[in-house]
């Protein structure tokens, strides 16, 4: 029943996670993650037929506030750009997502 995280699967989830691994890392992660998944997979032995999922421990719900801008935690342009390593004319500079194809 256990799910093996093959190196190929590790390569796939790394892609989903925008991470890069060397071949040695892929081999190591495959071994380690399989062992971890095997351990936590023991939850399949717990009967949960009569209970729903939750991530809420305090029961808090629907917290709202007036729809007004609170300037005490807004950044101005220079604050927003203060930490970037790549900017141009007051904008963040990012790598191109679409490339022009020359016909």
């Amino acid at each position, binding site marked *: 029943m256990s799910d093996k995280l093959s190196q190929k699967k590790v390569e796939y989830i*790394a892609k989903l*996670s925008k991470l890069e691994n060397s071949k040695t890392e892929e081999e190591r992660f495959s071994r*380690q*993650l399989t062992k*971890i998944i095997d351990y936590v997979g023991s939850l399949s032995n717990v009967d949960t037929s009569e209970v729903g999922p939750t*991530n809420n*421990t305090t029961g808090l719900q629907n917290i709202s506030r007036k729809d007004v801008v609170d300037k005490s935690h807004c950044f101005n342009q220079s604050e927003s750009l203060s930490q970037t390593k790549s900017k141009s004319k007051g904008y963040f500079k990012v790598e191109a997502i679409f490339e022009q194809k020359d016909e």
Partner: protein
Amino acid sequence: MKLPLDIKENKENLIEKRYSFTELVDTYLKRIRKSDKRINSFITITEKAAYDRVRFFDKEIVSKGSKIFDQYPLAGVVVSHKDMFLTKGIKTTAGSKVLSDYIPAYSSTVVEKLEKAGCILIGKTNQDAWGHGSSGENSDFGPTKNPWNEKMVSGGSSSGSAAAVSMQFSMIATGTDTCGSVRVPANYCGIVGLKPTYGSVSRYGVIAMASSLDSIGHMAKTTEDVESVFNITKGVDSKDANVSKGKFIRENNPVIGIPKEFFVEGLDSQIKDNIEKNIKLLGSLGYKFKEVSLPLTKNAISVYYIIMPAEVSSNLARYDGIRYGNKRTSFSEEAKRRIMLGSYVLSSGYIDKYYLKAAKVRNKIIKEIDRVFNDVDMLIAPVAPTTAFLLGEKSNDPLKMYLNDIYAATASITGIPAISIPSGFTKDGMPIGFQIMGPRFSEKILFDLGKNYQENTTHHLEVPSL
């Protein structure tokens, strides 16, 4: 000068002019300079900010005398913040190379509240990168060593905070506890560590790890100080909608449950003996004990290692190296492991089997814990299966490292408060402690027990040698 033990003694000394605010900071910095190369508890030391602040207080106390404590109840309390807490204008790394040069443009609510209350920031502390770790060894800036024996880990992930308080590099420290990250290092370093009720302290401006679990925590040598700090930091914050002000009705003669599942195989015998001895001591102070059973809690650690990586993979997705910080290639091994584990348990074909299953078992454990508090008022438990272990002992086996959080997981996934209190030393001189958990928002009864215990014991007065 001799450093004060706690906030109360410090206040008296400052009012009586036994030392100035500046002399106080001089003394802490001297200790840091002498020994922190060895311990590695700080990533950044904020000397200039600290001196600017104490110069102000030295002037204030001349003109206003003891009245300054009305406005600044924690005036002169030297604090260090885990590097997970954003500090405006001061480098904040989360222990990771991804943020090696990140200077926040704002401070977290907790940092602001403590500053407003008069605390003096002395430095930002070392930690497992992103809060990922139980030993402090996953810091990208080198591990924090245990103040009681440098060959041992300090515990993590709030490793530097615990070591700094233990070494008297600062009087109090902040930490974050997602699954033991305040309690375990506090325990390994012989100080008090509080993980409050989930949602009782604002997390605004604190780097997120796993949002349904992350709690802000506090560390000090005494329970009384942890309580004073918590009373400042807790409470509703318009910048964090997750904070609530819960109600708790106090019982007069608290009964403490001993969960039988927590004292079986896998627990170090010196810890077991120590806790049994302390149950007798607490008994002589009027606390009643009762054995209880929590059969589902054995699954808490598995629930945690599914839910947490799932939330980590989502929270760490924001680090794109575009707006701030470095590229994702700067993530080190443990963060990568958790991000990938999270992506896996959330991926198509596996989400039902792992993530949703864990969220259901979590619900069952919450119900089991809520039920036990109909029967008893608090629970006593170990903090970790062993005392501090050797550096490198578990670092090649992630699963083995993960199981170190086994006693921390119950309070984390159910959102209840827990406090770890130093309760002695092993034959080799390493600190031992125990953990007390209570119903949501019952911090007051945990503090009362901790204060009562510490009034009758002296373990917390021991200081490791410089």
